[in-house]
């Protein structure tokens, strides 16, 4: 193809959110038929930059050109009209509408009416061209998470996108589904569509992209052609500015079973779960998100009640449990939705540090709060866990995600738990915070705590776990020692496939 005018050019983009500079003088270009990997840590400004290209945010400075012409993108409608489509990490779909309604929302229609016929024809066209099909009459709420993402991609193509921005597309996909996505991307390439592939997963970026742009703290730090010379180590250093810390898992003796689940059913129709976690053992729960992981964690932690089954801690059954009862039995739970379920953002750090215990001694006496004891406790935790800024009076919502997670970890570990359930422990954290959390988990493991680690991140699961179990459709479909597990095998199980039983 002769025309090599960039489809999309961003020049000198700067974007601030209050005091935070999310993008600092960023230049970016995408040519037809090109797949550009946009790489960087969480919070490096990748998504912000693309949200600007898609008209969701307005830049504070900088210009945008589409197909060589200066463009004004004041809204998503402008971006769509200019042929830009974006698929967000968390799919933005309407669960209670049908696939077709989701596709047609925002389209003009014909004679002022919704035009079903044309939409169905276009849907068939896209299915034929890129292998991306969906039943138009299905309710979106019934779709699996991978299918919802496909809906998002189809929706962009429906609007004749020439630029397709994919934000962390594989975080909700199994390895096998990822393969399917890659073949669709290749088909799009041959059609001259430009694809921006936002990710922090190095292997994927090296596999699918033509060029890699690395961002760090809001600025572009590298722009390299993917000619086979890029290495994971080199990219990792570019992303975080220094050699990432490696966790080494030393094998050690595990004790008796501390957490035992027997016949646990998360819902009426789901299969029972039997699982044992021994003291000093980390059991990683792998699975595509949305397969019941949250319910699983909440059922054990007493947040919701399971449909059936028993939970034993150190051999003692804890029935009809509430969060308080489970806590008293020695269980700590760190939910994935930190600010939504773990903390009260508007309350100060000191209150949050005792969220589950301010009603009792030593923080309250006969119903009267002991503010001094609360403050002293918070100060000690802030120092011990290096929570920044070190101000116990600050509303905890103003802290960074990493420091919020530190605060929760500090709070829960202060209870000296026998069993810890931790979900998505490092999602959205920066490298230092990730290393901190991983170190704490290893320390706790060494101390003999039984740890249930739930994560979407297979790398993390493989790095930390002694045993790996796979969750699919609200049940554990297999469990094996990490030495016996392979990424392909676990991936297959995540997709509902059969796995040969471990020896």
């Amino acid at each position, binding site marked *: 193809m002769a025309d090599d005018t960039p489809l999309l050019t961003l020049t000198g983009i700067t974007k601030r959110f209050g005091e935070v500079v999310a993008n600092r003088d960023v230049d970016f270009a995408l040519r037809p038929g090109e797949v550009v990997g946009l790489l960087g840590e969480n919070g490096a400004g990748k998504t912000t930059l693309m949200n600007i290209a898609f008209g969701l945010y307005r830049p504070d400075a900088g210009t945008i050109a589409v197909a060589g012409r200066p463009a004004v993108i004041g809204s998503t409608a402008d971006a769509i009209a200019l042929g830009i489509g974006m698929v967000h990490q968390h799919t933005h779909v309407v669960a209670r509408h049908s696939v077709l309604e989701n596709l047609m929302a925002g389209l003009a229609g014909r004679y002022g009416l919704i035009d079903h016929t044309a939409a169905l024809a276009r849907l068939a066209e896209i299915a034929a061209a890129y292998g991306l099909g969906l039943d138009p009459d299905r309710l979106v709420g019934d779709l699996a998470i991978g299918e919802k993402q496909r809906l998002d991609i189809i929706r962009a193509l429906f609007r004749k996108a020439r630029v397709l921005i994919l934000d962390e597309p594989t975080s909700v996909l199994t390895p096998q589904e990822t393969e399917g996505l890659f073949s669709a991307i290749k088909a799009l390439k041959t059609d001259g569509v430009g694809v921006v592939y936002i990710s922090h997963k190095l292997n994927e970026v090296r596999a699918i992209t033509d060029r890699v742009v690395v961002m760090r703290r809001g600025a572009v730090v590298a722009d390299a052609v993917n000619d086979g010379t890029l290495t994971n180590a080199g990219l990792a250093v570019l992303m975080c500015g220094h050699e990432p810390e490696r966790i080494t898992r030393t094998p050690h003796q595990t004790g008796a079973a501390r957490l035992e689940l027997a016949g646990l059913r998360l819902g009426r129709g789901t299969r029972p779960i039997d699982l044992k976690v021994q003291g000093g053992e980390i059991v990683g729960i792998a699975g595509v998100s949305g397969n019941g992981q949250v319910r699983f964690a909440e059922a054990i932690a007493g947040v919701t009640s399971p449909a059936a089954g028993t939970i034993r801690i150190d051999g003692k059954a804890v029935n009809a449990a509430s969060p308080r009862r489970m806590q008293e039995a020695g269980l700590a739970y760190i939910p994935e939705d930190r600010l939504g379920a773990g903390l009260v953002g508007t*309350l100060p750090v000191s209150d949050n540090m005792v969220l589950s215990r301010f009603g009792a001694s030593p923080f309250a006496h006969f119903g009267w709060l002991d503010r001094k004891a609360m403050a002293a406790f918070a100060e000690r935790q802030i120092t011990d866990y290096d929570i920044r800024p070190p101000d116990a009076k600050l509303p905890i919502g103003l802290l960074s995600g990493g420091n919020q997670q530190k605060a929760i970890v500090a709070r829960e570990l202060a209870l000296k738990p026998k069993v810890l359930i931790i979900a998505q422990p490092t999602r959205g954290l920066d490298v230092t915070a990730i290393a901190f959390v991983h170190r704490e988990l290893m320390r706790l493991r060494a101390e003999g705590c039984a740890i249930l680690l739930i994560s979407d991140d297979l790398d993390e699961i493989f790095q930390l776990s002694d045993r790996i179990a796979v969750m699919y459709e609200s049940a554990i479909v297999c469990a094996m020692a990490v030495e016996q597990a392979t990424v392909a095998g676990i991936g297959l199980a995540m997709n509902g496939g059969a796995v040969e039983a471990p020896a």
Partner: protein
Amino acid sequence: MRITLEPRPPSRWREVLMPFAAIAASLVLCGLLIVIAGANPFQAFAIMGEAAFAGKFAITETVARAAPLVLTGLAALVALRTRFWNIGGEGQLLVGAMAAAWLGAREDIPVPLLVPAMLVGAALAGAALAAIPGLLKTRLKVDEVVSTLMLNFIVMYLMMALLSGPWKDPVTGWTDSPDILMDAEFPVFWAGTRLHLGVLVAVIAVIGIGIVLKRTSFGLAMKVVGENPKAAHHAGLDVGRITLFAVLLSGALAGLAGAGEVGGTQFQVIASISPGFGYAGLVVAMLARLSAVGVIPAAVFLAAITTGADEMSRQTGVPFFIADAVQGLSLIAVLVAMTLARYRIRWRPSPKREAAS
């Protein structure tokens, strides 16, 4: 063009000044209304100020009028701490008033127990009425806005039925309840004024609620439940029970307001016993920025507007409904001011021009 809100760095003085700015804004708007009504706004406000604050009688009258507003304001505030919109303060006040009037007219209660019985009875009646939406919300997840509003109407019509039925004056045929006993009338602290026991009850309630919210673990639990019920549940707090408790407390406070009106000012139940004290309580709570101490100045402000508007209307002919307008407008103004204290509004021009360059 696009309007965006940008967070501002938190500022203490802005938070403090905000309610005053809101009140000023609503007064300016009302000044305009007075002009439309053909009067001089400065003169009108002067009359209002004088009627509300000049002299012993005016001040004490305003304070007495503020007492029920303090209590309904606290009622709204306590429930809102757990994010429960108790718009039923009006109905809870009415049942409190009815309970107080019923108990206050009973000859079989020993005299020294009459007044305490009225207070306790009114608080219990208010709490019992509040228990309905409270249980509906915490047990069946029924939205409290509609249920509390409907109960206001139901209670109001029940009261009217009572007044024109069993409680109708057999001699005059008036639709007022029988007078309470002389011994049931609340003691007055300052002869010749209406500074009655209800005012003291309101002040004690402010102090008590202030302590509960700030110093007790129940107060913190209410706050945790209100700010983030999900986190509260995860932390092992019984969200339903804490909410219900706050709602009962809220209803009791509104019920006490009714007792004050019966025992301290009307000495019976009349159809117009509450000119919307319950609804005004929400305005008071918002103006007070949900702080217990702030309830007092907020209530005095609204009380002064009402007493002032009465006199101003007599002298200038401006309809006294101006008081209702101020009340509603100050609620909107304080909400807007709360937002402006935290966010800066940016009007972004259409980016067409930037692009041309």
